[in-house]
């Protein structure tokens, strides 16, 4: 007789129905708000914060009094671009920003700090960085592969426009010493297990002669099924005392 005790009419009373519908409505609206925040609003806000943090970092280098190591090694004082043997920038401790990434193709305001390690919480989802350097890959300026990771979507989407890169596009890596200039060479898709793209010569096991910049991000957008990999080749280094490369200066004078 337990069925008799349970009353559908009581459950369906006006008051119960109202509370139930209010709860469901609230949950639904919250879920929609979360989606909008996750793929759009939160992403844009994180991107703006990361751009600002990166500009601040670059600004601190402009005013630095420290004489770049490059001077002593290369003896350049005439303002000539010395060529393609750049100084090596040793990465600092985990999570610390040591360079900024400037990709004119990614838009006028785009500029992101590069921090050591690709730890999701410490670097990739961080409001001040967004781009991480694989600790296992080579140092910036070293012959070999300088490999970076960044999000394709969400958390500022550092590499969100990676698919818009065209062959020959310049990519600038700025440090306290100056600008490392790379040219975009090619892209490919890989699985997350394919760590050979981080090899000194990507995908091969031979000793390197070139300096490669590898950028990895997820693919397709909003999925982690595959990885989008972009390779660029080192072109030249411009020491800070020579002055900001024209393309970077044009972006900075916005």
């Amino acid at each position, binding site marked *: 007789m337990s069925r008799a005790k349970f009353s559908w009419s009581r459950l369906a009373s006006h008051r119960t129905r*109202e*509370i139930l519908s*209010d*709860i469901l409505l609230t949950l639904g609206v*919250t879920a929609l*708000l*979360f989606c909008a*925040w*996750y793929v759009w*609003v*939160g992403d844009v806000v994180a991107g703006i914060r990361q751009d600002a943090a990166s500009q601040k970092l670059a600004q601190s280098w402009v005013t630095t009094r420290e004489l770049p190591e490059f001077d002593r090694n290369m003896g350049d004082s005439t303002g000539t671009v010395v060529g393609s043997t750049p100084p090596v920038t040793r990465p600092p401790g985990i999570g610390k920003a040591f360079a900024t990434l400037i990709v004119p193709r990614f838009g006028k305001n785009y500029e992101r700090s590069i921090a050591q390690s*690709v730890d*999701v*919480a410490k670097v*990739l*989802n961080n409001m001040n960085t967004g781009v*991480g350097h*694989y600790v296992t890959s080579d140092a910036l300026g070293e012959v070999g592969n300088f490999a970076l*990771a*960044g*999000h*394709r*979507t*969400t*958390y500022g989407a550092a*590499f969100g426009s990676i698919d818009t890169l065209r062959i020959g596009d310049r990519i600038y890596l700025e440090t306290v010493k100056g600008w490392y200039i790379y040219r975009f060479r090619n892209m490919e898709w*890989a*699985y*997350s*297990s*394919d*760590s050979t*793209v*981080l090899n000194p010569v990507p995908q091969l096991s031979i000793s390197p002669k070139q300096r490669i910049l590898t950028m*990895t*991000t*997820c693919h397709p957008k909003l999925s*982690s099924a595959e*990885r989008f*990999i972009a390779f660029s080749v080192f072109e030249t280094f411009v020491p800070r005392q020579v002055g900001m490369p024209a393309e970077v200066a044009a972006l900075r004078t916005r």
Partner: protein
Amino acid sequence: MYSALWRILPGPRWVKVIELVALVVIVLSVCVEWVFPWVAETFIQSEATVGQ
């Protein structure tokens, strides 16, 4: 639930509206600042790396 909230809120109608807007703003900021980031980090796997 919401009708009860409307009754509990003090003041005339226009004051209640202002109070409601303030409540919505508070709830939304709590969501955006703490709840949503926690949900995203905890339940959504977003990867960008290889071989990790």
